[in-house]
C-alpha cells in the first residue's frame, strides 16, 4: 500500500474557471495499492473537483489541447507525462494557453 499523499494543485490561464474560479487547491490523495500517477490524478480530478463540462479539461485520457501541465515548475513532457508518479508535496499546475494581445 502507498500512503496518502498531499499535493498542491493549481489552475491558471482560465482553466481555473472550470473549478469555480479557485486557482489553488491543497489536496490529499487517498492511499492506494500502487503509487499515484498523472493518469490517475486526471481521473481523480474529474471525479472530485471538476463538476461540469469535462470536455473543456480532458480529451481521451489526457488533458485537452491548449492546456499545459507543469510538474514542480517543469513541463510534464520532461517527466513522463501521464506515467509520472506523484510524490508527496508535488506542485501540479494546469495552465490554459493565452492568445490575447
Amino acid at each position, binding site marked *: 500500500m502507498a500512503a496518502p499523499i498531499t499535493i498542491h494543485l493549481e489552475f491558471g490561464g*482560465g482553466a481555473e474557471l472550470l473549478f469555480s474560479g479557485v486557482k489553488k487547491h491543497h489536496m490529499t490523495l487517498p492511499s492506494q495499492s500502487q503509487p499515484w500517477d498523472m493518469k490517475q490524478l486526471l481521473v481523480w480530478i474529474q471525479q472530485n473537483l471538476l463538476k461540469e463540462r469535462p470536455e*473543456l479539461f480532458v480529451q481521451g485520457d489526457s488533458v485537452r*489541447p*491548449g492546456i499545459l501541465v507543469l510538474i514542480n515548475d517543469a*513541463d510534464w513532457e520532461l517527466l513522463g507525462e501521464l506515467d509520472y508518479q506523484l510524490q508527496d508535496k508535488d506542485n501540479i499546475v494546469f495552465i490554459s494557453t493565452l492568445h490575447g*494581445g
Partner: protein
Amino acid sequence: PLKAKASLSNEDIMRYSRQLILPELGVQGQLNISKTSVLIVGCGGLGCPLAQYLAAAGIGHLGLLDYDEVELSNLHRQVLHGEDNLGQAKALSAACAVRRLNSTVECIPYHLQLSSENALQLIQQYDIVADCSDNVPTRYLVNDACVLSGKPLVSASALRMEGQLAVYNYHGGPCYRCLYPVPPPPETVTNCSDGGVLGVVPGIMGCFQALEVLKIASGQGSSCGQQLVIFDAQDARFRCIKLRPRQAGCVVCGENPSITHLADYESFCGSAATDKCRKLNL
C-alpha cells in the same frame, strides 16, 4: 537585413549613453542593436509597449504590422495610439508615435492581415519576429513562417490578469508547435474582447518581449529559449517554467517535417484570424 554601422555617431553616443556604459551591452551591443530588424505582428496591447521600447533603445529597423484600426476600447492598453488616432490604421498610428520618439529608427507600417500568402516574404526580411497577435490561427502561422525562414520568435500573450512569454525556434529550442501540436478546440479559446484584460498586463508582457528582443539583438542572448514565463498579476507573481526540448516528431521543426509551406490556418484552427468574433467564455 541592414548594412552594418561601423561606428556610433556623437548623437548616438549621447542618446544611448546610459545603456552604452552597461558592461552587458557596450558599444558593440549598441551597434548590434542598430543593425537589427524586428517585425512586430500586431500593434495592440503587446505591440505598443514593445515598439516603444525597441525604438527608444535604437533598434535599426522596425516593421509594424496590423490590419485593424484604432478604436476607443483599445486605448486602455494600446498606449501608442491617442484619442486623435481613432479610426486610423494601427500600423500607421504606431509608426507616427515611434517616429516622435526616435526618428533614427527606420519604421515600416504594414496595414494588412498576415496570411499564408504574404507571411514568408515579409518575415524573410527581418532578423527577429515578435508575435503580438491576438488569435490562434495567427500564432500558428507566425510560428511556421519563423521555422521555415529560420527566425527566432519572441512570443507573448495576455488575457484578464495573466500573461505568458516564450522565445521559440531559438538556439535549437522548441517551436510553438512542439509545445502545442494540436490547436485548442475553438470553444475553449477566449480573446481580450470576450474575457477582458487589464491594460497594464500586456504592458508588462510587451516590455518583457522588448527585453528579450534586445538581449537577442545585442548579442547577449535570451534566457527564455526553452522556458515559459507565466505572470499572475493578481498575486504579482512570475514563474519560470522549464520547457521540453525541440521535438523530433514536430510537424514543422522536427526531423521529418510534413509542413514545408504555409497552408490554411483558419481552417486548421477552426477559428478566424481576428479577436472580434464572440466565443465561449473560458
